[in-house]
């Protein structure tokens, strides 16, 4: 059976077993990852797996079972297990219904044959090109990173008539380069993602990461405090995830833990800040539906600095009498999937020129939420942090710890970059597309030793 047939069979079995509603999602993943460190391939792996997830509903009692054994016999056993669990459940009065079917327009170009057929030799050659380009820079000591190619197929069927299926390919390439001149080390990073493995430009990625590594040798130590900041898209992308997941999801709003509770409809950010989630935009890694088979809708999360929208799955949407926005994740609640931030009209060089005393930051590392309602996060800078003084980059600095509110960060945005970059997001297939930005203040609370 193909994926949609498996899903139909599973739903059919659920209904025969007495389910009042049923949903089956089948997700197949064939992925390969070639990983390198110390300028050689040190791990090289392949995986193929197909997972069936069933929601068995008896009135308002719900059970969820998952298995990767997809023969008819094992699916019947899985359904029986789902039924037994559902029968033992207590009712969830907030559950209304699985979603109703809606038309899903296919998205062209999601699946690229060249990516699906990419073999280990090709990935090794991509790694080799990247490593060799990076080593053309003086003082490059070691190159690390990975090249991965994946084929993702999904089929979702429910007893109300939803039947959704799609497949997509994703190719990723990232690199960390370490430079050394014997007395100091420098660290640089670069990353790219596409549906098409042919779009990956290993020499460009290797060059970008190596240049950063070399430019961060002999970092000086500066004191923590408040600084102007210029964030490159890698850093902005990380900020977007935390902002969206902890702020713009319906479950965090309804739980009272989101900053949107205090700012919905009110000015929170600079007027130039516009944020939205759009799973159909081809500039991201578009995918047409969510884990419930609901078509992805564009949701404006912040318009001219005002938080205006939330992401919903069907469960949390019903609680407000609304419709799902097509953001159901694999677990309970909504999940941001295709984030965008609107561009401005500045280059990074112009942002630097407008900075009196600040930091140019490549990316954020190990970010965690310190206070969700105030949107306070902490984390480290990584792989390229420089001091800017009087409009010029003065030199690299040791990595800094930040602890500050993302509301404050975005409220103080002065300039937004004119070019956006598409980057991978938390879970495939999803993406984030963001520009660089400059904010007039961000608080740094510590410094490390490199």
């Amino acid at each position, binding site marked *: 059976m193909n994926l949609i047939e498996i899903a139909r069979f599973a739903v059919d079995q659920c209904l025969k077993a007495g389910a009042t509603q049923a949903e089956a999602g089948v997700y197949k993943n064939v992925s390969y990852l070639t990983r390198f460190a110390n*300028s050689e391939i040190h791990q090289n792996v392949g995986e193929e797996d197909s997972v069936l997830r069933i929601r068995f509903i008896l009135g308002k009692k719900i059970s969820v079972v998952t*298995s990767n054994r997809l023969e008819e016999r094992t699916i019947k056993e899985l359904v029986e*297990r789902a039924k037994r*669990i559902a029968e033992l459940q*207590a009712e969830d009065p*907030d559950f209304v219904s699985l979603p109703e079917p809606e038309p899903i327009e296919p998205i062209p170009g999601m699946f690229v044959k060249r990516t699906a057929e990419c073999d*280990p030799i090709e990935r090794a050659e991509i*790694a080799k090109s990247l490593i060799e380009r990076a080593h053309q820079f003086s003082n490059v000591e070691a190159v690390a990173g990975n090249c991965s190619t994946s084929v993702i197929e999904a089929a979702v069927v429910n007893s109300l008539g939803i039947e959704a299926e799609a497949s997509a390919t994703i190719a990723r390439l990232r690199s960390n380069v370490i430079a050394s001149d014997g007395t100091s080390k420098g660290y640089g990073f670069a990353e790219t993602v596409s549906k098409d493995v042919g779009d990956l430009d290993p020499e460009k990625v290797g060059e970008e990461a190596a240049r950063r590594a070399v430019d961060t040798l002999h970092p000086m130590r500066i004191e923590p405090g408040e600084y102007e900041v210029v964030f490159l898209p890698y850093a902005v992308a990380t900020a977007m995830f935390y902002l969206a997941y902890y702020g713009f999801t319906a479950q965090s709003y309804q739980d009272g*833990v989101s900053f949107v509770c205090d700012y919905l409809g009110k000015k929170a950010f600079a007027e130039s800040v516009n944020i939205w989630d759009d799973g159909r935009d081809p500039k991201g890694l578009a995918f047409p539906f969510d884990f419930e088979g609901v078509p992805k809708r564009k949701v404006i999360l912040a318009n001219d600095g005002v938080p205006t929208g939330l992401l919903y799955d069907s469960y949390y949407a019903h609680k407000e009498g609304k419709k799902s926005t097509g953001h159901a994740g694999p677990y309970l609640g909504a999940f941001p999937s295709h984030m965008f931030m609107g561009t401005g009209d500045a280059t990074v060089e112009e942002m630097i020129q407008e900075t009196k005393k600040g930091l140019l930051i490549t990316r954020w590392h190990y970010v965690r939420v310190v206070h969700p309602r105030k949107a306070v996060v902490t984390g480290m800078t990584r792989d390229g942090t420089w001091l800017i003084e009087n409009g010029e980059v003065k030199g690299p600095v040791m990595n800094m710890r930040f602890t500050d509110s993302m509301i404050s960060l975005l409220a103080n945005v002065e300039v937004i970059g004119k070019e956006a970059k598409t980057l991978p997001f938390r879970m495939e297939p999803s993406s984030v597309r963001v520009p660089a930005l400059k904010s007039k203040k961000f608080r740094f609370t510590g410094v490390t030793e490199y």
Partner: protein
Amino acid sequence: MSFDLSFAVEEAKSAGADYVDVRLVKITDEMILVRNGKLRAVQSIESYGIGVRVLLNGSWGFASTSRVDEENVRRISREAVKIARASSLVKKKGVRLAPVDPVEDSYSTPIKEDPFSVPLEEKISLLMECDKVMRSKGEEIRVTEASMRAHKEEKIFASSEGSLINQEIVWCGAGISTTAVGYGEVQRRSLPASFRGDFATAGYEYVRSLNLLDLAPKCAEEAISLLTARSCPSGSMDIIIGGSQLALQIHESCGHPTELDRVMGSEASYAGTSFLTTEKLGKFRYGSKFVNLVADATVEKGLGTFGYDDEGVPAQKVYLVKEGIFTGYLTDRQYAAELGLERSTGAARASGWNRIPIVRMTNINLEPGDWDFEELISDTRDGLFIETNRSWSIDDRRLNFQFGTEIAYRIVDGEMKELIKNATYTGITYEFWRSCDAICNEKYWKMWGTPNCGKGEPPQTMFVGHGCSPARFRNVRVGVGRL
């Protein structure tokens, strides 16, 4: 579980592999979540598959599939070799493996009560009762959660060196949490620990021992009290860290930097490297003389306890830090050989059939000291007692860290005087551990379980343990950030 893996080994060898290991793994996982009085989820997951790892001319290849039949297993065995050949196109020094004695053996987690056999109604009833008690404590209660999880891993390991090992690892645990909202604040309290509770390699008797129903009133009452508590002061203070928070401190600042693969650069593209570089071994003062940290995969109920690691190396105990001096690493066979060790220290673990074993923590434990907890409080003139993690962050070489906890108490002149909210503390790893001047004794020592350690590309989530007693650290920077 039984399955003849020998043909997979033979297929890979005949395709040219120098070394082969094969793991057939079946994972069964059950999670129950009660939220705001409703049974929000009963989730049952099963995953079954096989992975073949090969070494060819010093280069690794790995392939895996969920389709476990002879045809597909032979196919991925050959594919693993093909991948290894591709790896060798970008090779510098080649992989060697430290030796291990081949063994035929089996191991099962000792349990009294199979958590998968306990009636679901009984589990749900316990969680619903806890949830009800928490919700009854005040209008400020916005979110209540009570959850339970059980996990079983059945695996067969076979290698071309002649090892054949059958293991069944079982762990389970539970936890409760309350989120209160009010007075412009949001505060959460989780017991017995955050991250959905405390876990151990044990049967359901462990869940019973957590006495969740007894903890439920305190969980809710403390969340409400925290809404109006004073915010953590800023400055330098002595801090006494409670067991569940100290467990995470150990995890982030001790466990990870002693993973030898990180030190050797293997994780540079994701999790990072380590400041504990090899020239420091045996010399570097990591902590005060009171600090003894050990990696022990044999300790009872440890979440990182097993019979053999995923390379067939027996579980063992290794000192990482002895009397404050850095003395050892967590290793697998490859990195043990690279360092010139005679043997691996048995820390190669894979999260499933579709992942390669990489160096992971087992149970990283701080040995107890000789202080009584009440004496330690009495001995502290001006400080904080902090407990239960809320946020955690550390740099990619494991030096600069910052933690936030759910609850704290101000200690003044030897007494716990005042409830404190939004407590945070920060430091540099070795400076912090060198400031440790007191560790509580065995009476307060407990093994905590962390089921969600992330590492590797593609990512792997591993369950690890940390045993510790509360301990004191001097002059630590607290109250970080605009809270």
